[in-house]
């Protein structure tokens, strides 16, 4: 008898709550963070979320590591910008709010074009091909100045065409809400994709590409379609970026941006759907705030990334989920003291290491300003032994204590895992 007749699936309240919360956060964020800088950052975060989620379609869901994702966001951006300029010139009658879809079409087109060759291989070779493609497009951006606008890029004015109900997208807040709308819809669509046959087969291709061939699917076609879908959403992100900044330059297709997408998607967590959302937020925070705070931010980024890959390859999302699991079994109470301790020691160690790094950077780059610099509320003298020794002493002590605390934490964690496993077995037997 068909299971559907007898099955009772309770209304998935949890899912509705989460999506509603997401919508509320998107709507209310600019009212909580009121400054211009905050609005600009929120806009950028929305764009980054779409771009990173599209990237994770390939990485986390398809097992395809791409070093050239910016090609599709960037080319989508260029196409959108040209469309915007056509609207301004009157030769194209399209509402400005639909310009990102032009970007999406552009991303889809280029993914279709370049993706055929790119998805012919998998694994490491695929990664290298994406790198080559990214270099190709990047180098071409200096050659075809009509499309790419040469060194100056292509700029435009998002206040174009006829305003709709008084909305002309001049003020940042209007752009933000447009971005928020697109973000919500795109996130929902990308989530829906994970629940379709193609989405599931894509997961299967990630897990065992060879086996997929033996259940009737052409693995290359699966990858190619996924590539195109990711390209479409990337193009939308690029189009939104074009509207937001009103200029696209060669850096939008550059290696640095592709690297950033990879870095932060991985940092956020490629194994969970919401990981890239966290990654996108971190990406904007790092590139806007952290880069202002210190010149060494890329170094810190590289180090954090390195440690993430080594010790938490599932990213922040996996760390959150693991702790949620521990909490759901009621054991989180035992760990929070350890977390606080580890956190404090880590911060101290990072600050002292940071002091060293900042002093070196200061000597290297700002020597004209004299040897003293401000760091973490203190004044350091980059040329005095005392500053170096002091920072070093604090660093070594903090690291030592951290290691001790970590070992204890590790013991507690493993014990808890065993207890959880036992509890699961007990529940299964019921």
């Amino acid at each position, binding site marked *: 008898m068909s299971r559907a007749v007898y099955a009772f699936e309770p209304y998935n309240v949890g899912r509705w709550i989460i999506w509603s919360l997401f919508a509320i956060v998107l709507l209310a964020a600019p009212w909580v963070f009121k400054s211009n800088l905050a609005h600009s950052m929120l806009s950028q975060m929305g764009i980054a979320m779409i771009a990173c989620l599209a990237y994770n379609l390939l990485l986390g869901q398809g097992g395809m590591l791409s070093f050239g994702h910016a090609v599709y966001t960037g080319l989508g951006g260029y196409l959108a910008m040209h469309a915007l300029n056509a609207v301004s010139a009157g030769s194209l009658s399209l509402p400005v709010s639909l310009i990102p879809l032009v970007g999406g079409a552009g991303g889809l087109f280029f993914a279709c074009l370049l993706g055929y060759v790119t998805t012919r291989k998998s694994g490491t070779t695929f990664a290298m091909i994406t790198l080559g493609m990214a270099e190709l497009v990047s180098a071409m951006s200096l050659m075809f100045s009509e499309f790419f606008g040469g060194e100056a890029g292509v700029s435009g004015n998002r206040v174009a065409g006829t305003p709709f109900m008084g909305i002309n997208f001049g003020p940042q807040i209007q752009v933000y809400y447009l971005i928020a709308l697109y973000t919500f819809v795109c996130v929902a669509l990308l989530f829906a994709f994970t629940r379709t*046959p193609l989405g599931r087969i894509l*997961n299967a291709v990630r897990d065992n590409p060879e086996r997929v*061939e033996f*259940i009737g*699917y*052409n693995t290359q076609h*699966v990858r190619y*379609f996924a590539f195109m879908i990711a390209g479409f959403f990337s193009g939308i992100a690029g189009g939104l970026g074009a509207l937001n900044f009103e200029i696209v330059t060669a850096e939008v297709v550059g290696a640095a941006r592709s690297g950033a997408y990879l870095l932060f998607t991985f940092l956020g967590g490629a194994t969970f759907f919401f990981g890239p959302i966290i990654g996108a937020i971190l990406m904007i925070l790092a590139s806007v705030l952290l880069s202002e705070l210190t010149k060494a931010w890329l170094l810190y980024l590289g180090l954090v990334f390195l440690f993430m890959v080594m010790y938490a390859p599932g990213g922040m999302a996996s760390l959150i989920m693991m702790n949620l699991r521990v909490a759901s079994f009621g054991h989180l109470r035992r760990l929070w003291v350890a977390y606080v301790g580890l956190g404090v020691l880590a911060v101290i160690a990072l600050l002292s290491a940071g002091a060293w790094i900042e002093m070196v950077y200061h000597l290297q780059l700002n020597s004209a300003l004299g040897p003293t610099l401000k760091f973490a509320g203190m004044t350091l003298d980059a040329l005095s032994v005392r500053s170096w020794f002091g920072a070093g002493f604090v660093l070594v002590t903090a690291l030592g204590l951290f290691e001790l605390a970590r070992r204890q934490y590790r013991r507690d964690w493993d014990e808890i895992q065993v207890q959880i496993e036992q509890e699961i077995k007990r529940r299964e037997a019921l």
Partner: protein
Amino acid sequence: MSIASTRQATDPLAAGLSTPALELKGVRKQFGKTEIIRGVDLQVQQGERVAIIGPNGAGKSTLFNLISGRFAPSQGEIWLQGHRIDGKTPYQVNRLGLSRSFQITNIFPKLSVFENLRCAVLWSLGYRYTFWKFLADLDDANDRTEALLESIRLDKRRDVLAVNLTYAEQRALEIGITIAGGSTVILLDEPTAGMSRSETSRFVSLIREVTQNKTLLTVEHDMGVVFGLADRIAVVVYGEVIAFDTPEAVRANPKVQEAYLGTSGGEGGH
């Protein structure tokens, strides 16, 4: 002693159809300078159960790889239900109605048991690269998957990630994935490898159940399984089929005794 050998005579399917389910004509395969398969001719009738036995390195897995499309033969022809399949890709062969399992378990580790099976039914139900429908709404796929789950007796482990299953459960899932698409010709590569006595006998009855009315080829080393399951046995030695006959005939065949079962006069099953 197998009662399955009498099945064939009374099976209307086998009596009515003249096209063999699977046919190999003069198949050869060499890797570099070494010839692994040195001229194999084989005809498997509809609904037949054939066991392929032979010493290690005889080329049994290679034969499976050739039939299922993993490799292309260097020479010869392979026909499936009247279609020529040598040189075709694995998915092309699968779409024509042939499925195989693997000696080393080849499942989708990060998907649940249910998802593993559902993936395997999708193509045969016509859901190609569909991204505009939700999996949860595909009633036929979900129903078929549920039925499969029950038939391979993994319904209690429905939502467990495949990587967390026991070895025997993984082998059962492996078979489940193989038969999920409804293929009429099933190839099982050492399905009971690494199993204990009791697990093996349970597994064999499972295999018998799920491959009813299908054509089955299975590579096996366990003689008890072979003689209990097979209608005919093909003995492969050094890339050639030296005998292809009913179990009793194979047991009595002197060439086989010499090459494989030992010259002590047909030990056969345990």
